[in-house]
């Protein structure tokens, strides 16, 4: 475990204001540029849009000052910028779809989801005072995660849209429970692995320089593999199964520092993928599209042709180095230009320069998450922070890799950019958790909330209502000079 000694603690809230201003300029500016390019005037509803984004930024900034003053100053601005750029692009594609007489209105819905998502992040920051509380719900999280995964398979609840059985209809909305399941499973994996990592690390035979785990410790990874394959088979959702399996392998690696797990994980995934490509027609078709996208026969095949991928490539090519500019391209020619292929749309209008900047923003966001993991002083937090960051990283890799034909296309969404409510809300909750953990990681030891409460004692002795010591601190305004629980609790 590497540790870091901060030489001087900055809260970073001042830096955050400056970066938030830049992020808002990007989000609101993009919206204005779209209007100027398509109608030579600011778009109708511009004031409301600008006020919404600014309101979210100011609200979350104030909540951070109030509840998590040491939270990382980069996470919120980057997420605001990505979300704003995504909203502008979705709105821009709406205009084109409208002009062609197709169903539109994704932009307004996405704006609503942005507000809901930011509100969820705010609720996480306000209600969750210490991320270690989540460790108490390790197995509850597992049950919730598995139930969420299985929900779309239940008859009457699940809805089949575009050949994938991953939606659940709730009133007027369809929700993808898998997006929320990934948070629950990350909590479960973190809680499980922090308890079992010693066994996973040390026991077992050593073959060819690889420290192999014991067979019975293999159980959970086999279970995770089986569930992800089950999801793949039953819901025809290649992306989610890749995501869950990747999450578990990555967290195992972080927990045990044994790279044999990565090798085993890659081999198991390769076996599963080859098997799936041979057994399931739609997976095989994706591989065909990936390898021979420009083949006329495959381009014209319906369903499962390569038209979408190739048009996306053409769009990015026409964008070139600096792009056509907001509102000047034809991103709507690609099916699902505002969700699966939003990176191609951005590539067309912002060019390689813009796409590189967006990828840099993701890179920095993920780096902040992993840095939070290094800075945290408890194993559970380390695992949770790195797991959640890895989920974002894997999603970016799979989506951008698919769009640029580096790997076969799978149905994952670009975090914060792509149109889709469940993904946006789930990722905002992830941001809330990362902000909460980064506050704990950057807070100097002894300034309240830092390491004064034990999870075991909180479970057994202290009633839930008065568990976190940080509450006492804020109410009285006095820094506790002592570790209260140490004296109260008798060791069993």
């Amino acid at each position, binding site marked *: *475990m*590497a*540790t*870091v*000694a*901060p*030489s*001087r*603690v900055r809260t*970073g809230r001042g830096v955050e204001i*400056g*970066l938030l201003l*830049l992020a808002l*300029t*990007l989000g609101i*500016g*993009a919206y204005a*540029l779209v209007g*100027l*390019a398509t109608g*030579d005037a600011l778009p109708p509803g511009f004031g409301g849009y600008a006020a919404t984004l600014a309101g979210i930024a100011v609200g979350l900034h104030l909540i951070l000052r109030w509840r998590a003053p040491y939270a990382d100053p*980069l996470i919120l*601005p*980057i997420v605001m910028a990505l979300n704003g750029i995504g909203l502008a692009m979705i709105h821009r594609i709406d205009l084109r779809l409208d002009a062609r007489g197709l169903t539109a209105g994704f932009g307004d819905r996405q704006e609503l989801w942005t507000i809901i998502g930011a509100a969820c992040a705010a609720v996480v920051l306000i209600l969750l005072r210490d991320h270690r509380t989540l*460790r108490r719900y390790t197995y509850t999280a597992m049950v919730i995660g598995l139930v969420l995964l299985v929900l779309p398979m239940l008859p009457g609840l699940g809805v089949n849209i575009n050949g994938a059985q991953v939606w659940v209809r709730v009133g007027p909305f369809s929700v993808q429970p898998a997006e929320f399941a990934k948070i629950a499973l990350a909590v479960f994996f973190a809680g499980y692995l*922090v308890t079992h990592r010693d066994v996973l690390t040390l026991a077992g035979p050593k073959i060819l320089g690889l420290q192999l785990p014991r067979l019975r410790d293999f159980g959970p990874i086999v279970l995770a593999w089986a569930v992800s394959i089950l999801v793949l088979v039953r819901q025809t959702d290649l992306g989610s199964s890749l995501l869950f399996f990747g999450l578990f392998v990555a967290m195992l690696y972080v927990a045990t520092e044994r790279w044999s797990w990565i090798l085993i994980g890659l081999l198991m995934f390769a076996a599963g993928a080859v098997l799936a490509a041979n057994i399931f027609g739609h997976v095989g078709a994706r591989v065909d599209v990936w390898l021979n996208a420009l083949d006329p026969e495959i381009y014209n095949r319906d369903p499962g042709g390569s038209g979408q991928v190739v048009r996306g490539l053409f769009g990015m090519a026409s964008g070139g180095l*600096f*792009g056509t*500019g*907001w509102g*000047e391209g034809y991103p709507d020619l690609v099916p699902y230009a505002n969700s699966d292929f939003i990176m191609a749309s951005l590539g067309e209008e*912002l*060019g390689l*320069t*813009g796409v590189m*900047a967006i990828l*840099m*923003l993701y890179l*920095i966001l993920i780096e902040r998450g992993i*840095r939070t993991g290094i800075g945290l*002083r*408890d*194993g559970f937090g380390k695992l949770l922070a790195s797991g959640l960051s890895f989920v974002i990283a894997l999603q970016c890799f799979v989506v951008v890799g698919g769009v640029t034909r580096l790997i076969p296309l799978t149905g994952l969404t670009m975090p914060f950019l792509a149109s889709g409510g469940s993904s946006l809300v789930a990722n905002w909750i992830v941001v809330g958790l990362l902000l909460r953990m980064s506050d704990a990681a950057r807070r*100097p*030891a*002894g*300034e*309240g909330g*830092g*390491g*004064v409460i*034990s*999870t*075991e004692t909180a479970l057994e002795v202290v009633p839930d209502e008065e568990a976190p010591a940080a509450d006492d601190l804020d109410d009285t305004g006095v*820094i506790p*000079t*002592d*570790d209260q629980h*140490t004296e109260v609790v008798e*060791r069993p």
Partner: protein
Amino acid sequence: MSELIVTLLRVGYLVVLWLLVLSAVSVLRRDIFGTRVIARGSVLTGSRRSGPDGGANQRGARTSRGAPTSIRVTAGPLRGTTLKLGQSSVLIGRAPSATLVLDDDYASNRHARIFPEDGQWFVEDLESRNGTYLGAHRVNGPTPVTIGTPIRIGQTVIELHR
């Protein structure tokens, strides 16, 4: 709109986008260079290194001149780790919730704590199985700690530093 303004706006947007990226990177840079990442087993150069820190001086002004400002791990798996001292106690043990989490089979979950009282720092053993040693003596009840005296917990040795 004229062609020129359109081009300027297009390029200007990309400039602002990269401005955000670069200012974020500059904050990162400060984060990397502003902290000391100490690998396990590195050699410490002594207590003078904490001198120029702004935070240390600030805290030093509040407490008395010779008060310790940090804990250093000088031996054991976490060797090289430092921890800034505040006003409240520091819990040391294997429990993930401890302030200093030891990865050490000879330490108990809640092994010991170090706490301030009347400007003096004390160490107290929390009925750990293998005990806490201050210098050569086993700690029974709260014992005052002076700067530089080794506190041994399992395989880990920690010291208070100014």
